[in-house]
């Protein structure tokens, strides 16, 4: 990945510097003109907003990163109490309030990009990150090869052409199976693998035909998510499935990755390499639902960690820790009325193909319950049936969101050890 950085005083006089920087950087990093303009617009709104709300002689660091299939812009600034509620997907500007008008820009920013996140960095700094993905053409229809059952095969890191072929074969052989929409775009899958955020391994026969493959994605610095293993016309070839998983684990073994997670295991998933961490339900229509057992494994010996657990889910968490034999120091905690700001902020990550949204809390606030309900209303209107909410048990204020989640109909479904600062609990909403 390549990065460009500028530091500017937080003053509107420097707005043209920022917009020129973002637009030119985005184009250099390969994003199309329209995408570059959207990212520039979002950045313009963020910068203008920060100029208004941050007082004094402050410096803003802006980092533009070319991630091959996306461009990201990071704004790094001193921690302040911001009116960031406009970043909620539910936010609607009100013409009656000047404050609300000021935040309309943030709303525009949030909706112009593919992803927005806010996180605490070191040294009392906040980092606000905007991501815009490149657009890729849909694959043209071509005749796909007949793939015979393979008694012998070799594992390999695929070439660009092989990744493209894999991308074409996947939707044909797994028509009714959930996998990320991005995998359908051959060019995008090639770029995702080039970015090193995704990895792929395939099994081929002596003629070079692809019998199967596995994809993994870095969810964060510590955890990868597996997709697959996918087999093409290799019914019952457990050896191929196992070899793909084995090769993948061996490749990750001496890296910083400490855990591997699979949300949608295929029928050939070798469960003996993993442990079951719960079940999620994939709602395809209101009356059509499939249960997916989720699997996880650690790559290291577990040296223990601590978690903050609210009373509402304490019995669930403790039972799971006992079942999974996870060494944890559990601190029971509940909200005790302390100040937490007026407005909560959540980030929403959509996958339209999976009919899914994952919500992550960014900031706590008094309006937590209302905010969750507003989000659910929007998802309901958009007919999104699979709503997940992630709570990091290593961050104490996130534990306080749990009561509101439960009140709104969310239930804890799975625990991903070390999925966040500490363990991550994934809640699912039952429509």
């Amino acid at each position: 990945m390549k990065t460009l950085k500028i530091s500017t005083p937080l003053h509107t006089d420097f707005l043209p510097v920022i917009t020129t920087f973002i637009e030119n950087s985005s184009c250099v990093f390969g994003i199309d003109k329209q995408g570059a303009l959207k990212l520039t617009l979002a950045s313009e709104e963020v910068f203008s907003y920060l100029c208004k709300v941050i007082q004094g002689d402050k410096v803003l660091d802006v980092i533009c990163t070319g991630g091959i299939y996306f461009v990201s812009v990071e704004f790094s600034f001193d921690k302040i109490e911001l009116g960031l509620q406009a970043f909620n997907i539910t936010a609607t500007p009100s013409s009656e309030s000047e404050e609300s008008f000021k935040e309309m820009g943030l709303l525009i920013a949030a909706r112009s990009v593919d992803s927005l996140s806010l996180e605490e960095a070191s040294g009392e700094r906040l980092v606000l990150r905007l991501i815009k993905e490149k657009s890729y053409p849909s694959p043209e229809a071509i005749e796909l090869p007949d793939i015979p059952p393979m008694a012998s095969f070799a594992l390999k890191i695929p070439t660009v052409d092989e990744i493209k072929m894999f991308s074409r074969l996947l939707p044909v052989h797994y028509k009714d199976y959930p996998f990320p929409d991005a995998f359908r775009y051959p060019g995008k899958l090639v770029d995702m693998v080039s970015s090193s955020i995704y990895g792929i391994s395939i099994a081929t026969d002596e003629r070079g035909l692809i019998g199967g493959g596995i994809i993994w994605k870095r969810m964060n610095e510590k955890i990868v998510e597996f997709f697959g293993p996918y087999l093409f016309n290799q019914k019952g070839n457990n050896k191929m499935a196992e070899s793909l998983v084995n090769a993948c684990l061996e490749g990750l073994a001496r890296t910083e990755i400490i855990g591997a997670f699979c949300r949608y295991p295929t029928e050939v998933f070798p469960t003996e390499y993993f442990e079951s961490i719960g079940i999620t339900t994939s709602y395809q229509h209101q009356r059509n639902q499939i249960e997916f057992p989720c699997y996880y494994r650690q790559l290291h010996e577990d040296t223990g960690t601590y978690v903050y657990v609210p009373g509402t889910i304490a019995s669930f968490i403790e039972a799971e820790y006992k079942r999974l034999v996870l060494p944890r120091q559990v601190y029971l905690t509940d909200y005790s009325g302390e100040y937490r700001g007026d407005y909560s902020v959540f980030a929403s990550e959509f996958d339209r193909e999976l009919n899914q949204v994952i919500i992550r809390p960014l900031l706590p606030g008094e309006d937590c319950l209302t905010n969750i309900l507003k989000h659910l209303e929007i998802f309901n209107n958009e007919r999104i049936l699979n709503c997940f909410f992630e709570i990091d048990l290593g961050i104490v204020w996130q534990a306080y969101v749990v009561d509101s989640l439960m009140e709104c109909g969310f239930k804890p479904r799975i625990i991903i050890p070390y999925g966040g600062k500490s363990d991550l609990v994934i809640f699912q909403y039952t429509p």
Partner: protein
Amino acid sequence: MRPLALNKLVPSYIKSFEAYIPSKPDEELKKLYHTPFIHRLNNNENSLGPPPAAQEIIKKFPPLRAAIYPSGDSYYLRQKLANKFDMHPDQFLVGNGANEVITFVVKAFCQKGDNIITSDKTFAVYEWVAIFSGFEARLVPLRDYAFDDEGMLERIDKKTKIIFICNPNNPTGTYWDKERIKRFLDRVDNRNIVVVDEAYFEFVEQEDYPDCISLIPEYPNLVVFRTFSKMYGLAGLRIGYLAGNLDVVNTIRKTCVVYSVNAIAQEAAHAALDDIEHVAKTRKYVKEGKDFLRKELIRMGLPYIIGEGNYIMIRLPINDTLAYRKLMGQGIMVRTMTGFRFPNHIRVTISGLPIMEAFIEGLKKIL
């Protein structure tokens, strides 16, 4: 004050490197896993402890001598090694465990753009030291669980400086016999430094197993590692050494941190070297332990890889990290093998029979 620009200060090869996180102290692990005891079967330590003479040195070490620096280059220990192997004392370098001497060798021979060659499934420190020093580690897959000589020779290029061979290999226990080592050294033909790590040398009783220190006069590019951490039970004191051709060792000495080996370690190691009986006793319990495990594992239908050294690798029908946690719950600590690129395997240190029986009982409970 501006924020620390750590990103600019750290080299890219360090950014992408994973820090090794050692296990917590036993007392902390007991609390976390709710167990009143821990049988340590994870680090291939000698359950008999150090030889009696070394134990006496440790017991009688005068506390006031802790205020005095030790010999900076392990003077007397090197004299003793020289007598034992009929070599010059300067042909030995003593370090704070074998890990430190690995670092000395890599620093002495590698510069920007260079590479080292080793196996993908062996002791990790050769690979780690190379990577966090900014050099390429070329990993050649094992063949039939053993180092692949032809594969390693094929990967040598002009930038290859060192080839690391672990003999016997940790964790598979396979070894190259004398003929194979010599054939390999002949093919390398002094183009590169060849390090043979003999950390488990004293455990091997096979007649065709080579004593590589005896080959040093014939092969000036050969460097041999030995340690006091395994057979001699001094792991807690951290002491190991290397031996080689005088010019080669004098070159390595330039990168050596003096005074890194403490006084008790030097004296205990000096005393340990004489104890033949300790070696025999250790070999006896290791043999008994291996025989016992073989029988039990066959009975349980679990595949295993057993070779030389005081360890065995077992293939489990569940993931090794889960097995680790479940066994820890019973006070049994094994080494997970995913980090050695053997997913679903564990490595178990051979200990006395009662502990091996406890391990098998524990294993039965979790499977």
